[in-house]
């Protein structure tokens, strides 16, 4: 009886430790990355990603299952395209993995920032599409360090005038205010830095200006 109890306790501990440390990199066997047969001329057309975003719920659940993420924890994860759609990635299960929104410093928000940067570099002709696809699918954290910098700082002068740099925001010190709706988002949330209109500021400043946390929590 005692042995059974100990075995159960050990299994429970293993389960909790697995949940406590979500992967910050995908398993290359489960998620090697996959692309559509497209080129730079395709992915740089405005609206391209929206046209090709097709991930059925069944496929999202399969990605969670493969990584052992309980369905109840799905809100803590983004089903991420390892090679983003904007860089020609496909919706195949081989390109999907559950990426934590909450791990620090490497999380879904940070990868989204890298994806935006790489897309701009590809479309401006500074980086080859195949090179960007390879870099982000091999190790997105190394790619982040290469194309953005250690700790996520943007090169001097690249930030928008009058706005704290997105990289500073990605450090977790600032919230993203959707100036149209009046709601603000915390780092790692779905719409952090994503809405058409908005700006970064401290949470204290956002509250002082009358903005409110999205969905009550900003997450």
């Amino acid at each position, binding site marked *: 009886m005692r042995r059974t109890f100990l075995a159960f306790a050990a299994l429970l501990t293993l389960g909790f430790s697995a949940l406590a440390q979500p992967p910050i990199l995908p398993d290359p066997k489960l998620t090697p990355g996959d692309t559509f047969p497209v080129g730079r001329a395709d992915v740089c057309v405005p609206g391209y990603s929206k046209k090709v975003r*097709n991930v059925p719920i069944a496929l999202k659940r399969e990605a969670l299952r493969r990584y052992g993420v309980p369905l109840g924890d799905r809100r803590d994860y983004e089903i991420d395209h390892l090679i983003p759609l904007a860089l020609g990635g496909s919706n195949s299960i081989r390109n999907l993995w559950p990426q934590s929104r909450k791990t620090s410093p490497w999380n879904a928000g940070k990868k989204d920032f890298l994806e935006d940067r790489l897309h701009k570099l590809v479309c401006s002709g500074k980086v080859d599409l195949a090179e960007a696809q390879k870099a982000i699918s091999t190790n997105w954290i190394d790619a982040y360090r290469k194309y953005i910098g250690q700790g996520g700082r943007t090169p001097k002068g690249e930030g928008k005038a009058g706005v704290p740099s997105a990289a500073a925001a990605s450090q977790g010190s600032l919230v993203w205010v959707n100036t149209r709706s009046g709601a603000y988002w915390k780092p790692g949330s779905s719409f952090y830095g994503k809405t058409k209109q908005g700006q970064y500021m401290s949470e204290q400043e956002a509250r002082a200006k009358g903005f409110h946390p999205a969905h009550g929590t900003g997450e």
Partner: protein
Amino acid sequence: MALNRKLSALVQKRELAKSEATPGQLSLSFTDGSQLLIRLASAAPPMPGKGTMEKVLETGSRLVLVLEPESRIELALADPGASISLRDAQGTVEYLG
């Protein structure tokens, strides 16, 4: 089977001009110059010579093209999420999935 709303809305009313099956791929050309390419896990079934697209159904790796009048083509996708490509007459991406 579930309706693929996005693809159905795009191809609805397009008239089939030509179909071509090669091992692992089915190519449908429409009279407006657009082309639908589908990567297959198995051989393509016989295709009707004429028809107008009505809707597309999709569940997992199964895809069904419904054409008017009364044709139903069942296909097995090679890799769900990365097997279908629709481009317009100018070659611009309309749909990938």
